């Protein structure tokens, strides 16, 4: 796969949820292309379909219409080829397993091999390998979830509001941690978030979405230099991008 080829290719994706009050158009003819190694955020208010889009790309949801390609294959084949890693809002760890055994789970499922203790050390939980998840703070648990999502060497990391349940300080620490990790790994990341600042700080591109029907409002390149740090948040370029996204969202609502 040459660099620059599309890691994720979405064409005309549409999906409705059927509830008691009729159908809700969660996604309306979405087109999206994410290059290999690109970090793309989906940002928007609740109900804009950003999670639905992520789930359709990961093969967790069968959209009613449209097409998804992940590194040239459909999502189910991408699952079969173990191309995905997933981090959700709740860590979803297995409480009966230690941290290390949780991170080992993908290796058991896929049959892949990896240096688990090195990975634990890299995400900053090396000394907690034998702990049970319940003994860890929310931020630490999410680090375990991140290590678990990366251990089998995925090509596309799907992150669904991964820091949404954390307190502000843990959030900031996790953002920087993720930046550091991603800047050394450079795998494709699709990152769903409510936070405009978070999206701008982390991403190469920010895709702005709006609800009813779920659609893409804007697709902005973030021309800020890497490696990035939180000092960036004070620069005029950063503030200008955040302001522009916020304006787009306000206009749509």
């Amino acid at each position: 796969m040459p660099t620059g080829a599309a890691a994720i290719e979405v064409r005309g994706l549409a999906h409705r949820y059927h509830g008691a009050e009729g159908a809700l158009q969660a996604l309306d003819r979405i087109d999206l292309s994410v290059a290999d190694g690109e970090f793309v955020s989906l940002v928007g208010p609740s109900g804009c379909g950003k999670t639905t889009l992520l789930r359709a790309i990961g093969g967790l949801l069968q959209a009613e219409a449209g097409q998804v390609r992940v590194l040239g294959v459909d999502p189910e084949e991408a699952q079969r080829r173990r191309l995905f890693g997933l981090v959700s809002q709740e860590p979803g760890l297995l409480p009966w397993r230690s941290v290390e055994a949780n991170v080992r789970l993908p290796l058991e499922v896929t049959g892949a091999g990896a240096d688990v203790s090195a990975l634990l050390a890299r995400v900053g939980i090396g000394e907690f390998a034998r702990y049970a998840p319940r003994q860890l703070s929310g931020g630490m648990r999410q680090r375990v979830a991140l290590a678990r999502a990366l251990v089998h060497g995925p090509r596309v990391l799907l992150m669904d509001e991964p820091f949404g349940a954390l307190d502000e300080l843990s959030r900031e620490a996790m953002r920087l941690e993720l930046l550091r990790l991603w800047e050394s790994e450079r795998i494709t990341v699709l990152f769903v978030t409510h936070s405009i600042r978070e999206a701008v700080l982390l991403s190469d591109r920010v895709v702005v979405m709006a609800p009813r029907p779920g659609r893409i409002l804007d697709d902005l390149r973030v021309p800020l230099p890497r490696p990035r740090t939180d000092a960036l948040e004070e620069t005029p370029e950063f503030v200008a991008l955040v302001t522009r996204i916020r304006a787009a969202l306000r206009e749509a609502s």
Partner: protein
Amino acid sequence: MTAARLRRVSGVVLPPALFVLALLVVWDLYVRWRDVKEYLLPPPVEVFRALVHDPGRFADAAVESLTAALGGLLIASAVAFGLAVVMAHSRTLERALYPPALLVKVTPIVAIYPLLAIWFGFGIGPKVAIAALITFFPMLVNAVVGLRSIDPQAHDFMRVLHASRWQVFWRLRLPSSLPYVFAALRISVPLSLVGAVVAEFLSGSSGMGQLILIANGDFDTPGLFGAALVLAAMGVSLTAAVSYVEGRVLTWHDSSGG
């Protein structure tokens, strides 16, 4: 044992022990004071005497009943869990199997004892069958709920890895169901004893049920009290055993340990 641990244990054990002791004293004084006939209410010491006079009689009967109860419990739990696995994986099969299972629950099991006796004879067979039928439903319902109670985020994670149903079952569903399985066992262990003793009442052939029938016929009220005590002790020990195993197995679960 540390002093703190000792204090904690004595805090748990002491109040009920004192209460029971007080109860025995009041019971004893009342019987003496009102000169109550022994066949109506024997003094505690007579109950104790009945138990130690012929402990073999109680022990043999207890083993008989326990075997039937645990046999039924084991068979029912295994079958119910197996069915639950099927039902947890298929809504269609769940819809098909639930009504008949419910029928087993709502049918007064005593009513089909004659049938069971015809099919299984007069030995341990019908006792095991009754204990099994009475403990079947709690395990089935709990196991279905437990097997479905998986963390959706953990399930999503395994799905994007293309984990097989088998892998999801062993690594996620089965461990997730264990707290529910133990909850079912805590319900069904005493029920299994009820089933066995009821069957013995009906057949009169052996076990604690028969012992009670005989004691009743002999106006042996101390024997009746003794039998009740033995059955209570059996129920308590079995429940404690379940709790002990649960505490060992479910160290990760909130409800375990305490």
